[in-house]
C-alpha cells in the first residue's frame, strides 16, 4: 500500500470508524457545549484541528528525544499537558489579535481546549504502541493528530447543524439542553456504528 493508500485508510478510520467523539468518548465537553451555533462550532473545530496537529508533532518529538531518550517516561502526562497548555495559550493570543469576533464567540471554550481530552488523548495515543506492536513515526503521528481533529470537527458541525434546527422543536422542558443533546449524540453514535462494517 502506497503513502496515499495508507493516508486514505487512516482518514476513514479517524473520521468515521474510530471517531474520537462518538467511538472513543474524547472531547465531549466542547462537543456538547459549543454545538449550539454553527459558526462558533466551526471556529472551535478549526482551533481544535490546529491545536491537535501541532500538539501531536510537539509531544511526539518531546517524547522521543527528551523523555524516552532519558528514561523519563513516567513524566509523560506532566510533560504533555504542559506542552498543550503552552500551545493553547499561543493560539488564544493569535486569535484574539487577528479575529476578535471569533474570539468573542468562542468565549470561555478557547482556554478550555487545554482541558479538551481529545488533545491530550491523541498525544498519548500517538506514543502508545498499536495493537500489532508497532508505533507511529513522526509524520504519521502528526497526520493522526490532524485527521482526528478533522473527525472531531466533522461530528461537531453535524451536531451543531442538527441542534440549530432542534431549537425550534416543541419538546418537553425536561428534555431540553443536555438531555436532548446526549440522546442526539447517541443516535449519531448509532449511525456511525454502521461504519464499523467497512473493511479497508
Amino acid at each position: 500500500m502506497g503513502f496515499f493508500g495508507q493516508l486514505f485508510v487512516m482518514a476513514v478510520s479517524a473520521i468515521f470508524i474510530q471517531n474520537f467523539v462518538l467511538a472513543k468518548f474524547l472531547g465531549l465537553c466542547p462537543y456538547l457545549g459549543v454545538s449550539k451555533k454553527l459558526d462558533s462550532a466551526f471556529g472551535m473545530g478549526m482551533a481544535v484541528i490546529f491545536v491537535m496537529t501541532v500538539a501531536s508533532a510537539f509531544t511526539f518529538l518531546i517524547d522521543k528525544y527528551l523523555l524516552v531518550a532519558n528514561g523519563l517516561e513516567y513524566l509523560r502526562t506532566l510533560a504533555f499537558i504542559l506542552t498543550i497548555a503552552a500551545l493553547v495559550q499561543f493560539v488564544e493570543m493569535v486569535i484574539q489579535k487577528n479575529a476578535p469576533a471569533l474570539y468573542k464567540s468562542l468565549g470561555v471554550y478557547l482556554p478550555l481546549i487545554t482541558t479538551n481530552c481529545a488533545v491530550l488523548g491523541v498525544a498519548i495515543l500517538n506514543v502508545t504502541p498499536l495493537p500489532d506492536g508497532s508505533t507511529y513515526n513522526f509524520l504519521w503521528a502528526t497526520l493522526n493528530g490532524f485527521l482526528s481533529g478533522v473527525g472531531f470537527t466533522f461530528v461537531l458541525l453535524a451536531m451543531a447543524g442538527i441542534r440549530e434546527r432542534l431549537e425550534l422543536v416543541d419538546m418537553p422542558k425536561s428534555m431540553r439542553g443536555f438531555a436532548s443533546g446526549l440522546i442526539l449524540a447517541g443516535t449519531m453514535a448509532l449511525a456511525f456504528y454502521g461504519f464499523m462494517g467497512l473493511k479497508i
Partner: protein
Amino acid sequence: MSFFKELTKGIIKENPTFVIVLGMCPTLATTTSVKNAIGMGIAATFVLICSNIMISLIKNITPDKIRIPVYVVVIAAFVSVVDMAMAAYLPDLHKSLGLFIPLIVVNCIILGRAEAFANKNNVLNSMADGIGMGLGFTLSLSVVATIRELLGNGTWLDMRILPQSYNPMLIAILAPGAFFTLGFLMAAINMLKEKR
C-alpha cells in the same frame, strides 16, 4: 458544622456529573461495568482530595496570573502517582481503564474544584469538598454503570442478577448506549427537579 456541609453537598445537591455537568468523558467511557466505574471513581476521588488539599495549602504563595498552570502541574503529579500505583497493584483494572487514567488530568471536575473552591477556602474545607465531590462522582458513575451493565450483560459487579434466559441488550454497553443512558437519566433528573 461547615465541614459536614461541604462534605455532603457534592453527593446530591451539587453532584458534579448530573447537576454541574462536568467530566462527561469518563462518565461515558468507563461505565461499561460497575467495576470499571468504581475504579475510575476512586482514582479520580484520590486525585481530587490530594489536589484540593495541595492547592489550598499553596494558594497564598501562588501568583494569580500563573495559577492555572500551577494547578495543572499539581494535578498531573497526583495523576502520575495513581497511574503508577494502579499499574503495579491493579494491572487488570489499569488495562481496562487504559487511556482514561492519564486523562484524569483534564477532567474538568478536578480543575473546576481547584479554581472554584480550593483556591478560596481553607485546607479542612477543601478536603471535605474533595471527598464529597469525589463520592458524588463515583456515585453517579456507578448509577450509569449499573444500568448499562444490567441491561447489556445481565450482571452487577460481575454477579448475575437477571436470569440466564435474559437476552442481553448489547447496545447498552456499546458507545451509543452510553449516550442514551446518560441522556435519559438527565431528563429524569430534570423532571424530578421541576416537580419539586
